[in-house]
Every structure is written in C-alpha cells, then in structure tokens.
C-alpha cells in the first residue's frame, strides 16, 4: 500500500527532554515498551538508546568497546560517514527514501569496536507519541573486524497514539569475522503505518542473525531487509515469528544474496493469522558456488485472515544447494489428537501447539526477553482469538 505522506507531520508530537533512565517514563508508556521487548530498568544491558518522536532522549553506553551516538552526532563526528551513510541504501530510490533523507529526525549510530565481544545486549528503542506523528530515522550499525554484539531493538507507540507513520532506514556493516545479532520486537497499533528499510553487508567469516517478533496488531507494515554476503564463509540467518490479529496488514520478508564462496543463508518465518492479512516473502539468490541456502515459511490460519507466501530461489551457478519449504493451513489434526490422547481437551491441545509454533527459543534471546516473549505468547493463547 502506498503511503500518504501529507497526513503526517515530521515535527509533530510531544517533545521530551533528556531522560536519565527509561524508568522515568510514564508507567503506561513503559508497559508499551516492555511489550516491545525493552528492558526499562536497563539491567543486564551494555547500553541503551531511546528516541521519542524526533528527539533522542537517552543515549548511554556502559561498555567502552561500543560507541553509541545519535545519527546527527555521528555524522558530525565522522564528516558525514561517507563510507556508511546512504551507502547501501539509495536516497533517490523512491519517495520513501527521499522523505527519510529530507526529514531526517534521528536514529542511532552503533559501532562495536574491533575484536571486542560485548556479551550484554545493547538496547535501542523507537517510540511514537502523539497524533499523526511521522517519525523518520536512519540508523547505522557497524560491527568491526572480529567484534560481536547483540542489539535489541524495540519499537512502540504510546496508547494515546491515534495515527502514526514510522520510517526506519538501517544500514548494517559486519566486517571480517564480526558477529551481529539484531533482534527486533514491534508493538505498533491499528492506525500505524510502518516502513522499515534495511540493507547490510557481511564480510568474510562474518555472521548476521536477525530475529523479528511481532505479536500485536499493526495497521500497515511493509519491510524487506536485504543482506549481502560478500566475503567467503559469511553466514546470515533470519528468524521471524509473526502474529497478525484482525486489522493487521503485513508484507514482510527477507532477502539474502550469497555473493561469495561457502556462504550460507537461512530464512525461517512462522506466521500465524487470527484475522490479519499477511504476505510472507523470502528470497535467497546464489551468485557464487558452492553456497547453501534454505527458506522456510510456515503459516497457520486460525479464525480468518490470509497468508500469501512467496518463496524465491535464484541461482546462475553450478553446485549450489538451495531449498525452500512453505506450508499454509490449519494445525494438523493428528497433532491435536496426539495431545488429546494424553488428556488435553481440544482447546488446550490447540493452544499448546500454537505456543510451540510461535516458540522463540531458537532465536537465542537473552533469558529475560525470551521469558517476556513467551509470557506474551501464552496470553495470546488465552485470548478469545484462539
């Protein structure tokens, strides 16, 4: 769906001054952030960045191995970041890109320094509060040679937000032997339009793992991050767990380009619709050989809605191993009956299987986030929608 930019103001919404810590936010907003996977106490994190509308309100690192700045500060410090800013994404590609370039209203710059392994995750948080607010951000993530970092990115709107637009552009650079885990949890709303656009490159021996969790309604979301594996033995994995309640319109997918020898890519999406419309895309292309890639999209439809899966594989090389597996439908009766034979009634059996389907354990999330997500998934099952 096209976006009517004239409906939103990129200067609108509440202005918020600097916050010493996220616990100073109003309780209602904290709840929305917790649902987006944000640890508002800032415990067990190596740093945190938060932006409300166009204002960066919190930017703090506790680990000297990581540099965390607002995008504006980074552009100033690094002379416009010529090697990284609008390097993988094209500012002239379409109106969306031009709008982000012209209205730039924040974003973060994260640089994990060479050889530093940061064990505690770094949180970043984009929050929208107000009516008809347009938020346009541009983020840069650089993982230098041999460095490792896990970024937890939570996006949310406040309860009071009636209508909003979020444009979030991100460029990822994973240098030789670096490892980036990027976990994104979304908590938008019925009348929110979301257009993230991401691109990344991974150099030899590097790893990029993306986890995406969406359990709440979002009016209109389209995203299709593209990762290019440009160095030998680079690896990329995308795991998505998506729930689309009634009122959600989603078009999401992942694209991996295997451009160097012995690179591997994997896209795994599990989509549950309980009334929402979902297009689930996946693309793995092989431009080098030997390479390996696997796409998997499992869709469950429970109580209306639609799922359209579009898995694509491309190769112009001999000796590549690419595969895909897509399935859309209901829960297998055999699985329900297996659990019923153990004494679970049909509702209990269904909930148990759905919880398993949405299980985020494979993502390797920090314990606290994993627990929070599993709790949300459990509540989801208890709701009348299932």
């Amino acid at each position: 769906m096209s976006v009517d930019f004239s409906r939103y103001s990129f200067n609108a919404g509440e202005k918020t001054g600097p916050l010493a810590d996220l616990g100073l936010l109003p309780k209602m907003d904290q709840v929305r952030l917790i649902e987006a996977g944000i640890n508002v106490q800032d415990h067990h994190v190596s740093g945190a960045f938060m932006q409300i509308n166009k204002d960066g309100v919190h930017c703090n690192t506790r680990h000297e191995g990581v540099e965390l700045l607002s995008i504006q500060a980074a552009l100033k410090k690094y002379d416009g970041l010529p090697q990284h800013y609008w390097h993988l994404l094209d500012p002239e590609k379409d109106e969306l890109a031009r709008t982000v370039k012209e209205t730039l209203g924040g974003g973060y710059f994260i640089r994990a320094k060479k050889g530093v392994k940061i064990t505690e995750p770094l949180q970043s948080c984009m929050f929208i509060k107000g009516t008809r607010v347009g938020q346009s951000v541009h983020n840069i993530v650089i993982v230098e040679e041999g460095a490792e970092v896990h970024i937890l990115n939570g996006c949310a709107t406040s309860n009071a937000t009636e209508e909003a637009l979020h444009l979030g552009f991100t460029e990822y650079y994973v240098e030789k032997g670096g490892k980036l885990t990027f976990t994104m949890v979304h908590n938008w709303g019925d009348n929110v339009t979301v257009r993230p656009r991401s691109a990344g490159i991974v150099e030899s021996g590097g790893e990029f793992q993306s986890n995406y969790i969406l359990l709440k309604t979002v009016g209109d979301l389209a995203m299709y991050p593209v990762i290019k594996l440009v160095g030998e033995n680079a690896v990329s994995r995308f795991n998505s767990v998506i729930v689309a309640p009634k009122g959600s319109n989603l078009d999401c997918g992942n694209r991996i380009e295997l451009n160097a020898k012995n690179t591997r890519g994997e896209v795994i999406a599990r989509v549950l619709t309980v009334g929402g419309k979902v297009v689930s895309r996946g693309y793995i292309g092989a431009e080098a050989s030997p390479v390996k890639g696997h796409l998997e999209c499992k869709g469950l439809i429970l109580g209306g809605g639609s799922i359209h899966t579009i898995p694509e594989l491309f190769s112009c090389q001999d000796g590549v191993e690419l595969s895909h597996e897509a399935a859309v439908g209901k829960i297998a009766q055999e699985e329900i009956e297996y659990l019923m034979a153990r004494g679970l009634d049909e509702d209990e059996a269904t909930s148990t299987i759905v919880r398993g389907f949405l299980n985020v354990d494979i993502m390797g999330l920090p314990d606290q986030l994993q627990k929070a997500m599993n709790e949300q998934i459990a509540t989801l099952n208890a709701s009348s929608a299932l």
Partner: protein
Amino acid sequence: MCCTTSKKTTAAGVMTMKMLEIHDLHVSIGGTPVLKGVNLTINAGETFILFGPNGSGKTSLLMTLMGISGYEVTQGSIVFKGQDITRAPMYERARLGIGISFQRPPTIRGLSTGKLVELCARDQKVDVPAMARKLNFDTFLDRDVNAGFSGGEIKRSELLQLMAQRPDLILFDEPESGVDLENMSLVGNTVHELLEGESPKGVSLRQLGRVRQTCGLIITHTGYILQYVNAHRGQVLYHGKLCCEANPHEILKHIQKHGYHECLRCLSTDDKEIRL
C-alpha cells in the same frame, strides 16, 4: 474354548472387576469395514495380547478404543469402568484412565518432550527428570516432541509419557518395533513396570492378581514383549474378527510354525471347536 469369552474370574479363581468391555464392535474407515463384530473383555490386572497379520485391524481396534477420528463405530459399544465411552471424546477417555503408546506419533515443533510429559501428568506431581533417567532418556527432555527421533527413541518417549499419565488401561501398539536389542530390555521392563508396578518381593502372582488394577492390551508381531510381561490371555484378530483365544505363548508358537492361515479355518467353523 475359542473366540469371544467374557471371563468373570481370573486364572486363580478370584472375582475381578471388568475394566474394558467391547460388545459386537463394528468399525469402518471411510466407509470400508475394518472391524466386523469384535467382542472382548479385559479385567482389571490382566494383560491381553493381540496377534494378527498386517491389515487385520489390530491398530484400528486400538485407535477406536482411544477415540481417534476417522474410525467410525457403526455398531456395538465400548464400555470402560462401567461407563459407555463409544462416543466419548478422546480426552475424556484419557482422563478416565485409558493410555496409548502410538507406533508412529507426530512431531510437534516448539513443544519440548519434557513439557509434554508434564502435561501428561495433569494434576499429579511427577519428577520428570528422574523418570526420564530411568528410561535413559533425560537428554531428550529439551528436544521437540518426536523431532528426528529414532524408532527406539519414539518408544521411550511414549513410555515416559505413560509413566507420567499412569493410565489404568494401556494400549501398546507394537512396543518392540524399531527397538534395538540393547534397548529392548529397557523398553520391556518399563512396559512391565507400567502394567504391574514394581512388584514387591515375596508377593505371589496370585496375590499380585488381587492387588493390581492396571490392565494392558498389547499388539505384537514378534512376541519379544512376552518375555517381559505376565501375559494372561491372547487372541488373534483376523479379517476384522477375533478368534483363537489361548495362552499367548502358545499362540505365538503356533503362528511361528503355521502362520495365520488356520485362523481362517477357525473363523469359518460354526461350532468354533478348532483350537490352536
């Protein structure tokens, strides 16, 4: 004595409770009859062995007793603990005390084996890791249910679930199939324990017969399981009908020697005088 009999006493001559009564059961799958008038009573504490060639309806009988969809009862009834369960939903049968060890259970992604075992226990408190250690299966508790399990691993997973569930009637669909020799005694002893409990030393079989309540219905082709359980009775299911009731060891010997073709003779004889 052949075909359907409804014993009211055990071999020891003690009055016992009827646990399962199957009366003139006719079952069809997709309109095709698979069971054609099965009569069978299993008393509390008894273990009944079911023989029969492939396709004779053995698994269909177990599935029908459990209430799996697709097995349509067209005639007759199933009574468990005095209650007619012919049309009861599966979970009700399970909660009443019927348990089953499936031969080919489905994989359930995202559900750990350990969690499923807890679910099987319902309100009973169970020490899942301790039970799993007994089955040499503790390293599988974090694995998704049946995901990539070998034949023997599936069997141990099924037995572990039954240990937590503690049913009063246990249906075993070929408990020894796919189990390697090394694990056979583990599986066999667990089946024994599920059916008989850990029998206290010095208690005679006769006394045991009075105390134990759990009963079993076991399908076997190879008969290996007979070495591990006190099988009381056995019968052959042939062309959807039960015939040839005898001591299960004798039935096995007979089948090994002559195959199943004599069952046909048995079924076709009106006075049912032919015995194994």
